């Protein structure tokens, strides 16, 4: 496993933007070919998608709302990556964050503002501990974090379902919990927009009116702040230096006096907290509740893709998250507009990740291209 991780790291740390850009282009091309084979016009499909993303202020707001949790799960995966750990558990940590946010948002009553903060802190603490379990198991018992986090994902899913079904928490006649109190939400002007002055004001500002038809919330601001925090921790603090040192060479780090085991636990805990923040903000800003899940929702797995496309950098994750959010929001529109399967989005994403996995191939293409130029 070691040298494999190193080769990936080399490629990611070298900040080879070219590889990412080429991979994204290849993904879009493969998507076009698949659509063409299936008998749909790729140009029309991509036009529909672009219009579906940028056509109205409302659409753009939705894109951001879709991107918000992905940025944070991406940050979670990227953070663990820097310590040489593969966090496949963002999914489970997201679930725990969402669950705890709803529990605290519903059972605890606090004044507005304070309540939201308490909910957020409780959720990221719980999710951090959840992520920390995988770090602990790796540090103390050598259990591979990929396996541990996969197991923890499923345990989280069933645990969440179990808690949601408990009496007093499950909303009668529904497959979901009670909604959190308004004091715990982070929606912007949620109530005011339905008051008379609110309506009057929005009528005078059509762009804002369009945007505020969506569940606009503070989530994206939190996500960007978290990206800054992640960047700061990794690049400007001793802790970050130690975590990165463990990631680039465990043995050298140990020799240099860094406690490798402790670093792994801390790294997974912070990664868990970041994914938990995604779950918490999703509940506080968009869903206001947690529902019984038959299968994983995929925020964590999407986070892996976001992290990879973002070259595991904090700000890369913001851009990759928005790209993915746009595809996830705009993609399904080809279904209603032209009957083309929206799953082409998964194929495009998969292709992008696939090519990002093999920088050697991309470099080969690029050098072939260059040679031709010279001729």
């Amino acid at each position, binding site marked *: 496993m*070691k040298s494999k991780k190193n080769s990936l790291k080399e490629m990611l740390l070298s900040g080879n933007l070219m590889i990412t850009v080429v991979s994204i282009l290849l993904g879009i091309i493969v998507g076009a070919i698949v659509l063409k084979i299936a008998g749909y016009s790729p140009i029309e499909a991509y036009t529909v998608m672009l219009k579906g993303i940028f056509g109205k202020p409302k659409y753009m707001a939705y894109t951001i709302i879709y991107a918000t949790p992905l940025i944070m799960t991406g940050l979670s995966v990227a953070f663990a990556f820097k310590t040489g750990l*593969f966090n496949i558990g963002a999914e489970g940590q997201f679930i725990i964050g969402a669950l705890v946010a709803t529990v605290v948002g519903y059972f605890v009553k606090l004044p507005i503002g304070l309540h939201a903060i308490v909910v957020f802190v409780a959720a990221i603490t719980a999710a951090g501990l959840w992520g920390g379990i995988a770090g602990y198991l790796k540090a103390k018992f050598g259990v591979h974090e990929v396996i541990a986090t996969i197991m923890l994902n499923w345990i989280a899913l069933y645990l969440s379902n179990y808690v949601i079904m408990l009496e007093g928490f499950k909303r009668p006649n529904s497959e979901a919990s009670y909604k959190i109190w308004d004091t715990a939400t982070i929606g912007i002007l949620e109530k005011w927009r339905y008051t008379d002055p609110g309506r009057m004001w929005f009528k005078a500002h059509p762009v804002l009116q369009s945007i505020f038809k969506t569940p606009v919330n503070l989530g994206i601001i939190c996500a960007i702040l978290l990206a800054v925090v992640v960047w700061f921790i990794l690049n400007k603090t001793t802790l970050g230096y130690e975590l990165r040192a463990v990631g680039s060479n465990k043995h050298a780090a140990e020799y240099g006096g860094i406690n490798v085991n402790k670093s792994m636990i801390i790294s997974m805990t912070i990664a868990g907290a970041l994914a938990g923040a995604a779950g918490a903000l999703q509940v506080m800003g968009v869903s206001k509740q947690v529902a019984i899940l038959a299968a994983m929702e995929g925020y964590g797995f999407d986070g892996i893709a976001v992290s990879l496309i973002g070259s595991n950098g904090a700000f890369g994750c913001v851009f990759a998250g928005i790209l993915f959010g746009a595809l996830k929001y705009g993609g399904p529109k080809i279904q209603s507009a032209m009957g083309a399967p929206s*799953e082409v989005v998964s194929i495009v994403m998969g292709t992008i990740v*696939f090519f990002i996995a*093999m920088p050697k*191939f991309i470099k080969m293409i690029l050098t072939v291209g260059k040679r031709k130029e010279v001729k």
Partner: protein
Amino acid sequence: MIDNIGFILGTTLMYATPLIFAALGGVISENSGVVNIGLEGMMTLGALMGATVGYFTGNPWLGLMCAGLAGGFLAVLHAIASVTFEADQVVSGIAINFLGPGIALFLSRIFFEGATMTKSIDLDSKMPRPLDGIFAQNSFFDLVLNQYATVYIAFILVFIIWYMLYKTKLGLRIRAVGEHPKAADTLGINIYKIRYLSVILSGIFAGFGGASMSLAVVSNFRPTLISGQGFIALAAMIFGKWKPQGAMWACLLFGAAQGLVVFLGGTAVEISSQILAMLPYIITLVILVGFVGKSAGPAASGVPYEKGER
């Protein structure tokens, strides 16, 4: 009472089967030194292919074969990336897990007028039950042994893979490549060929696993059909210490948990099915904690091999 045990055992076998196929795929791939985290995606595409071909041709065997081919096709992509282009195998596997379900749902929408759920295969076109009618209906042996053909195939395959890996020259080569590729190279073994073969086989088996779900356990494909079984198979493989027989026992354990959930769902026993469903994963973690050191995978698993590397 004995009938209840029979029911649980039978359900265990049925639910363990898709896992056994996929886990065997994992075993063979990892023994050659390639991590295959994409089993999930390969299973999903296999399940769709099996159900689709089964529905349109009415022939479950053809469905099973095509499912294997579909899984194999994704495995070829994984092999190209991880063997030829020395990609990060986990990342390539993640890509496969996007591609598999993506392609599966895409095809489903094309074949079934925009639906992500395929139409049901009629009872006659489902996987046959070779021992049907031999035992008295609902007797103990009937409940345990009257299984779909895929169940028997899975167990036979466990034996075949065990024999192949530990008793044949090919198996020795696969293990040599996974354990010490440089030494194997020195002995003139074509590492790329062995790894391609192993990875493609793993995809074919994962495809079978998916189809044994969509052609036997249920009779159609739907988006949540596989949900996580590829990952459980992966865990079973590690749990079973990268050995076919070990993986089989682990799959049976996971299957038994599922069997208990189904059984208790039909009785008045007040144990939350959610808690029960959690058990196999907790057990896996506990056992991994207890068995550390003893359980180590093939040394070169996950490491790309570059010819001439020193």
